[in-house]
């Protein structure tokens, strides 16, 4: 099957396809950032996307979430064509993401950060809130409860009233994932979730990623530099260099692939 390694077991291959990225190509002016990138994600998979700096990993995420339209190629989510949809429609359709550089609403409280992401499915409108109707009070309470449950999963329930920007770095990373989950996604794109974390925090993060995958029934696509995290968490991995896919396979296969070693360490390392 296109965009998947051949070595995966039949049990994995039987699952339904969730996200198909097919022949994605993107140019910034004349610079080719992504070339012919294809990946097919199946329900419940944990897939890694790795590659040296500047390989085009974040660009792939930006293309999938509609930050800019791809020059060529198709992105299909559950059969819906995502190309040319505005970002907020893609997110509302069920794809959520985090950012490489944390982009929280830094001046707002932790709780409000999560509740903002709940907004598209708030269930009440402007009139309900202006007139403070019963629907408003009910849905607002439900939304708050839902957000607090999410915060509890991420160990942030005691910090709900704190200003998001004042949290320590590791917690801000967690809050960003919580906020992404508040949009009710089916697919979660994590852009370097472990950046700036210490080894102990990375251990916690690995457990957390497994937990949210099972608890929220997610498909997770993960960009990461920390090999320990990628190798332990991902079921299979795609490796990019200079905008192209140079290898894909299980962590074991990728680790021993000469092309991957060359991309990361240079040609001499192979000898």
């Amino acid at each position, binding site marked *: 099957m296109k965009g998947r390694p051949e070595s995966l077991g039949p049990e994995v291959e039987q699952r339904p396809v969730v996200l198909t990225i097919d022949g994605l190509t993107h140019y910034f002016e004349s610079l080719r950032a992504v070339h012919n990138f294809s990946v097919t994600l199946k329900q419940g998979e944990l897939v890694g996307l790795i590659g040296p700096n500047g390989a085009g990993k974040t660009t792939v995420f930006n293309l999938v979430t509609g930050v800019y339209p791809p020059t060529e190629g198709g992105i299909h989510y559950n059969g819906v064509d995502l190309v040319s949809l505005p970002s*907020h429609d893609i*997110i*509302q359709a069920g794809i959520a*993401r985090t950012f490489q550089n944390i982009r929280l609403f830094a001046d*707002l409280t932790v709780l409000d950060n999560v509740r903002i992401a709940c907004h598209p499915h708030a269930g*009440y409108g402007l009139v309900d809130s202006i007139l403070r109707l019963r629907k408003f*009070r009910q849905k607002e309470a439900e939304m708050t*409860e839902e957000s607090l449950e999410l915060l509890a999963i991420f160990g942030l329930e005691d910090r709900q009233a704190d200003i998001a920007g004042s949290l320590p770095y590791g917690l801000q990373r967690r809050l960003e994932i919580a906020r992404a989950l508040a949009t009710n996604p089916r697919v979660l794109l994590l852009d370097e979730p472990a950046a700036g974390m210490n080894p102990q925090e990375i251990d916690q993060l690995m457990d957390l990623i497994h937990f949210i995958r099972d608890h929220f029934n997610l498909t997770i696509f993960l960009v990461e530099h920390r090999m320990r995290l990628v190798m332990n968490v991902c079921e299979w991995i795609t490796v990019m260099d200079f905008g192209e896919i140079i290898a894909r396979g299980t962590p074991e296969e990728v680790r021993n692939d000469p092309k991957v070693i060359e991309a990361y360490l240079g040609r001499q390392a192979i000898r």
Partner: protein
Amino acid sequence: MLRRLQGRNGYLLVGLVLCFVLGQVLLSTGVINNYWRGIIFWGAAITMVSLGLNLIYGFNGQFSLGQYGFYAIGAYASADVTYRWVHNDSSGLVVVIGGSVLALLLMWGVSVLLRRFYGVRTMTVFVFNVLAAVLGFGLSVSVLVPVLGPAVSTVLQALPGVVTQQVVFFLALVGGAVLAGIASFLFGIPVLELGSDYFGIATLGFTIIIKVLLDNTDTLLPFPEMKGARGMVGIPQWTTWPWVFLSFVFILWVMRNILHSSTGRAIISVREDERAAELVGIDVVSYKILAFVVGSVFAGLAGGIRAHDLAFLHPQSFNFIQSFNPLIIVVFGGLGSMTGTVFAGFLWIVLLEGVLRLYLPAGFETWRFVVYPLILLLMMLLRPEGLMGRYEVPFLRSRKPSLQQDGGTETATAQEVAG
């Protein structure tokens, strides 16, 4: 219902009624003379305009210089309605109210129609909405006025005189506000797609266009009663304390309820980080338009109040230098603080227009535009977050989100239903 009035809401209601009665008594007994009455009403109008701007700039983060344009639209539109009414002509009323209703219906139809298509270009949306508005108001002039005009006159004349006046005034205020809202919607569709700086420049252009149009209402536009650059006279002086008080509380109440809801959080998220807001599923452009339209409706309402207090409108009072006034007030009071805007708005008018004119030597007016920017400069250097920062008085604050408390209100409503 009664349970909701207990505790905080109850105190609030009592406080508001006391405030209202106190104001009415002071005005009726003449403790507050006509000069100070004018100052207070003016302060209220400016504060309402500034609250609208605070929603646009302070909470939504869109730097706008167009607020006085919408203020002018509201003022002139409502003044025209009542002016025509006292000259036994109901056409103003029919056009403003009927046309607004028709235009809104047509624009709603356009939005339903365009929702069927993906990737509709902004300019297409804009053109369709402009057509809808033009068609709506065109129909009201050509069809509604001859058909409904006499009937509206007869029905309203049949009421007792005092009631008729209040009804017409109410409709004029609503009409002015809605007209300002429609104008801001049409203007906002193409312009709010731009970044914040470009938006600021475009809104400045809007204010200038409105001022030029107002200068030529009798020549370019078919409104001889507005008398162009000579200024519109003969507007009935119908603004009374209850009207000022009610519109003021109404605006504060609407703004508070919007801001402390999911919609309000979406509006604020656009200010915090547009890209991040878009990528948690918030339709950034429509929330910019929403904040812009609501803010402009506030300005339109304030315009109606001001026009019927002053009884005289001049294009010069809506020029672009004046349009910096609400901006200064909002920055002075604190971006993103309703309390700060109210405080600064009244302080601005009461001090600069009231106290200084009375107690400082004549000729001070000339120096005002040296003093204003100096104050602003000092403010920026000493307290850039504004007088109040983001502080809110308890009435305007959101309730602490606590599950226990919410659970409590839930059971209370359940009991209320059972009882």
